[in-house]
């Protein structure tokens, strides 16, 4: 384990930025959720790397990585259900055209 901690942090930062770019630049609502998944994975890399490099005897990092898994699963289930529901009534998944609640 001679890899410095900063390498993991920089990898996670890069993955987070790519995910952010995907969320902000894509038109399709499903593609936006794909970007969110990338960002959540970047967070998980950080949590596990800090766990391993700082205090492997305490399980804080791994426990919160598992909670992030649960949150990601919940987010995807509800998000895709919303997209499919909107698709059924409006025949579109383009985020710009879903403006039902626009003032």
């Amino acid at each position, binding site marked *: 384990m*001679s890899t410095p901690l900063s390498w993991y942090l920089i990898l996670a930062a890069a993955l987070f930025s*790519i995910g952010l770019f*995907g969320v902000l630049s894509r038109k399709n609502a499903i593609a936006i959720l794909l970007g969110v998944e990338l960002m959540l994975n970047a967070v998980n890399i950080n949590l596990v790397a800090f766990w391993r490099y700082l205090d492997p005897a305490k399980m804080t990092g791994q426990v919160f*990585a*598992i909670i992030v898994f649960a*949150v990601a699963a919940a987010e995807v289930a509800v998000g895709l259900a919303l997209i499919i529901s909107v698709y059924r009534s409006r025949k579109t*998944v383009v985020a710009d055209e879903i403006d039902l609640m626009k003032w």
Partner: protein
Amino acid sequence: MTADQIIFLLCAALILGSALMTVTTRKLIHAALWLVAALFGVAILFAILQAGFLAVVQVVVYIGAIAILFIFAVMLTRRVVLDKGQQTRSNWWIPALLGLLILGGLVFLILGQPDFGRTAVEMPTGVDTLRNLGTALVSPDAFVLPFEVASILLLAALVGAVYIATGNKE
């Protein structure tokens, strides 16, 4: 350059390349498959970090459940945004600039911390991390409360997803 670092760099190249393809490729189904590749790279990273349980959970939950859910959603909503044509906004350079700025700021901050150059502490001998993880998740003086909150969140998401995705209510 030790073997550890070479494996890490290969893994990082896999993750970042697949992530870039995920956000830029035109066909949505290909984007979902590239996401699977990126998630698999992260699972390898967890294995390198000696978090074997998380590597397995990553494969089972992320690749086995979430990615398949994405592929189903793509198939169910396929014909709207035909895979042809512009998939990104016309002003895509603003998010690109923002991402690069955030990446630059984060890298600057990380490299500015001398403490982050450290290498991993020795894994304490005789410690069963999987047993510790299980105990920590249900022990009252550790993380039982976040654990229960996560289960309630999952239940709420399950009920909500079923309610939203079921069609005509009457």
